[in-house]
């Protein structure tokens, strides 16, 4: 098989993979909106943050979560 054929096949495979990518649509975020997806409760989070700061002299960096319905 020639290089050009291989290249085209690779491109074909890549486009196949691209079409297979799926975004979680806004109306499919019911599970993400569950309160248990937001991590610990706020009080627990504050306690962890306090201990982390005391032990490691570091804080923050926890602002990115995996949950939420992404509403509005």
């Amino acid at each position, binding site marked *: 098989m*020639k290089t*050009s*054929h291989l290249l*085209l*096949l690779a*491109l*074909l495979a890549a*486009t*196949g993979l*691209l*079409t297979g990518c799926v975004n979680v*649509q*806004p*109306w*499919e*975020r*019911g599970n993400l*909106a*569950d309160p248990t997806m937001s991590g610990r409760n706020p009080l627990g989070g504050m306690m962890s943050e306090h201990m982390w700061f005391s032990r490691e002299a570091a804080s923050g960096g926890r602002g990115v979560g995996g949950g939420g*319905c*992404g*509403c*509005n």
Partner: protein
Amino acid sequence: MNTSYNKNNQAKTKLTAIVAVHLLGAFLAVAAPLKEGDTFPDLNQFGLEGTVPDTHGKVVIVDFFASWCHPCQESFPVMEELYKQYAGKGVVIIAINLDKNKADMDDFLKSHPASFVILRDGSNKLVSQVKIPTMPSSFLLDRNGKIHAFHRGFKGEETRKKYIEEIEALLK
């Protein structure tokens, strides 16, 4: 020699065509959502649960909601208020539920009672075509079924005022 060259060319053309079809598929998968001025799809064509009301010649609000969406909980009392204010003047409000389980919708409606029409798009056929960008999303349709305004999310009093202005303008 010439024959093998032609065969090679044909193979290339076929592969290019397949790649083009794939790319077209990828493009269609991210097709643009509806915009103002577009005709809203006929609700009777999506197998929605519930009875689709007659909207011929009426101003219509189509609101997509789900029980897990907090702004939807805030929007429902406003929809109810708009319904009571404008139902007699030719406005139809249709709320379309997108919960996976009907029981979740029923629980939601117990705590957020609604007099307007509730339909359920359990198969997500309609919303997959409309492609709303966030929850909740609502469309205000004119008397010809065309999208007059689109509301992305619900922003309390600001959204309520906009609705009233837009409905009043359409009823004139």
